[in-house]
């Protein structure tokens, strides 16, 4: 890795941390500003109760997401992804798709650049589509809320994962078979786990990584 890229990386961390800190202040400050405008500041006692009631699962989930996705996204990509959200249903598949399209290897300078470009583009397109959508909300509403089209938008995630499943399973059947069967059986016998699908990524990923490691080891020994 050359010096200019090391300098780029060091600056990425500095800018990323500053951007995250700025966004944390904005995201947490906005409710107070809105409260002042509306004439009703947040009730901190009710906030504490709500945080205890709904917070733990999401706080743990966001920490788990951080640990899982940062290695996939690299530094620049992860700073941006955690600011802009929609990780599982958009940013992660988008970055992985971009990485594979150009054949970038993880941990390389190229992967860092591709991941950042991909997530920045995806975030800007989302912001643009939503801004246009909000401007056109009234004329678009009848079309988008047409009952005939609802199944299409209710199934965006299955459509995304169907496409991605083919792409990744076809070349990695040995890695995919066991976690796929295990997850199908688990969700069949314990259907209530449906609400905790994002947590089940951890054991499924763990099984897949263990198998991939065994195959990798076997391949290395054979050479």
């Amino acid at each position, binding site marked *: 890795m050359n010096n200019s890229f090391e300098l780029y990386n060091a600056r990425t961390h500095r800018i990323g941390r500053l951007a995250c800190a700025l966004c944390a202040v904005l995201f947490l400050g906005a409710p107070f500003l809105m409260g002042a405008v509306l004439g009703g500041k*947040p009730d901190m006692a009710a906030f504490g109760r709500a945080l205890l009631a709904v917070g733990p699962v999401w706080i743990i989930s966001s920490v788990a997401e951080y640990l899982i996705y940062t290695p996939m996204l690299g530094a620049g990509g992860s700073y941006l992804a955690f600011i802009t959200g929609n990780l599982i249903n958009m940013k992660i598949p988008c970055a992985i798709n971009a990485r594979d399209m150009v054949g970038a290897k993880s941990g390389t300078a190229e992967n860092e650049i591709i991941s950042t470009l991909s997530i920045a583009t995806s975030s800007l397109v989302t912001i643009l589509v939503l801004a246009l959508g909000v401007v056109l909300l009234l004329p678009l509403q009848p079309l988008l809320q047409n009952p005939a089209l609802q199944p299409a938008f209710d199934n965006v995630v299955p459509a995304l994962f169907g496409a991605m499943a083919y792409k*990744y399973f076809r070349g990695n059947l040995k890695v995919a078979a066991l976690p796929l069967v295990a997850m199908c059986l688990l969700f069949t016998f314990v259907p209530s786990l449906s609400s905790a699908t994002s947590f089940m990524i951890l054991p*499924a990923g763990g099984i897949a990584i263990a198998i991939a490691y065994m195959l990798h080891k076997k391949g290395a020994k054979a050479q």
Partner: protein
Amino acid sequence: MTILSQLNSPAMYLICGGVIAVVALICVVFMIRAYRAGLAIGMDATKMRRVIISSTTFTILPAVGILLGVIALSGALGTPLPWLRLSVIGALHYETQVAQGAAESVGLSGLNATEMTATAFSTITLVMSACIMGGILMSIFFTKRYTKRLGSSDSKSGGVAGGFGDKAMTAMFIGLVSAYVGNYVGQLVSGEGLFTFAGSWTPIAVMAVAAIAMAVFLYLAEKKQAAWVENFSIAGSMLCGMIAAVLIG
């Protein structure tokens, strides 16, 4: 003035639009820096442009889906807040659940505009912001050390473990997809009672159609040398899956 018209007031649009503009600016800065750094280390500009085009086409359909989330939440929370939450930091599956839970915790019977007050609204907004802060806070304090550690463990690991990083990332993604596929299968088989097969089969049919469409796109890209098709393969496959969902109804 009703609470909903207050929530849709120009001042609310200004606050939310301002925050979104700052985040958009951050994205532009990261994008320009990455592009320039890519050129500086000798990366092919065409390759980087392909990534931008592919990421754009990839994002449009899910973004329209997210727009529906804005519409769904706008009945109870007005338009500006869902617009802000879903343009940045938020996630479609997260916002509705947390807003609902927060509404109940502040004493509303559910997420609805009829019972909403200014205090309830600002409290719900604060809960929605606070619960999803984990990723941002971890990024501020740990990303530098975490990515350095990942980098050094990659470079130290020669022999058997050498070059395993890519396979581990692909395996993790396979695990992610497996968890979602398993969920759809489980919901079909046992969603309405163990082994009743009374759940919805639409998600599985949609996945199957999207997978077949992806197979066709990859065939065209790889066997017919139509590499450009790959830029649109995900978006095109998703569109096929979503059309199938409409046809199934």
